[in-house]
């Protein structure tokens, strides 16, 4: 055991250095839990995290609807919505769609008039919409419903796919009343989860 009296201390400053070396330094090292010359220490830290419900999606920037060989049939196209979701044990979630910008220029199809319809297929987490949905410029229409305790990826109680996806099969009638030309509209998707 080392005491201050065991060591020579010619002056006041030397005594301060010994105090620093043999008393304060080990204490500081122990507190910092870092390696120090000739010192060891252990510390326990409790880590905690609050996992919240979360949901995000991704859609292609553009989709071209094409018409078949039959005259005045239907323009068709598909949109694959990719999504990642985590819902709570008492929550759930949904994906909806809304026409945020109707077809332009004028003279062609109009989503406001009910020209854009879709069905949902291939959902690998949650349940895709049932039947034929008519996209609206004023209302959000269903695409997918997420159940409670849903989670993307990892397998087990979660889905094995990451990301998950659901496909929208879009249809626009090729009415003879439309003027010839190119038309475009924007379809906005929203995902939410609790």
């Amino acid at each position, binding site marked *: 055991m080392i005491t201050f009296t065991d060591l020579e201390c010619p002056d006041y400053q030397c005594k301060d250095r010994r105090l620093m070396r043999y008393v304060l330094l080990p204490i500081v090292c122990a507190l910092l839990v870092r390696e120090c010359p000739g010192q060891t220490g252990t510390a326990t830290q409790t880590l905690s995290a609050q996992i919240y419900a979360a*949901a*995000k999606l*991704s859609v292609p920037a*553009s*989709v071209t609807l094409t*018409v078949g060989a039959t005259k005045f049939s239907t323009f068709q196209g598909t949109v694959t919505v990719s999504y990642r979701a985590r819902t709570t044990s008492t929550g759930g979630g949904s994906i909806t769609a809304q026409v945020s910008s109707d077809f332009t220029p004028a003279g062609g*199809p109009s989503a406001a008039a009910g020209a854009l319809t879709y069905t949902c297929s291939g959902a690998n987490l949650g349940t895709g919409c049932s039947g034929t949905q008519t996209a609206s410029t004023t209302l959000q229409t269903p695409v997918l419903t997420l159940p409670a305790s849903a989670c993307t990826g990892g397998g087990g109680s979660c889905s094995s796919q990451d990301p998950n996806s659901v496909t929208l099969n879009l249809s626009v009638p090729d009415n003879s009343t439309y003027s010839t030309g190119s038309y475009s509209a*924007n379809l906005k998707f929203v995902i939410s989860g609790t």
Partner: protein
Amino acid sequence: MKRPLPLITLAVVMLVLAGTAHAQFNTTGTTTLSLTVAAEASLRIDTATTTLGNIGTIFADYTGTTNYTYKIRTGKASGSGAITLKVTSDFGPAGGPSVGTPPSTGDALTYTCSITSPGTACTGSLTASTGSSTSVSTFGADAKSAVGGNTGSVGWNLTNDPQYSTGAYTAVVTFTISAT
């Protein structure tokens, strides 16, 4: 000796790669839907078999009417359209009327036209032919029929030549609609 890439360059490259490797996930996403509406046309013959009959006056011409429904969309700026007909199979069996080789001069299968807008009916009485298509209706630019289609008809007139042998005779007339 090669100089190492500046740190900022590496950072930019990594950011670019990260951006291309993964789609952007957000709580909302927007897709632009696009389609091209082209000129097109179709028709349906509503009178599958048109019977030409003569009622009343002896040796009166045979007459009948063929109804049809058409859909059309012509080009907005400089499009046009047409309906034509052609006798694709002459009357048979032999011994009766004939469009291609009538037994008497002046024998003919003629027709008049009627059509609802946006079509314009043929003018007057036209003679059907086995050799070439003849007009039934024409359409101008940006012609658009109703969603369910519009209607038209062709009124037939066939000479009742005493030279025809008695019996039943059949011919086939093909209607064609086009749009640009």
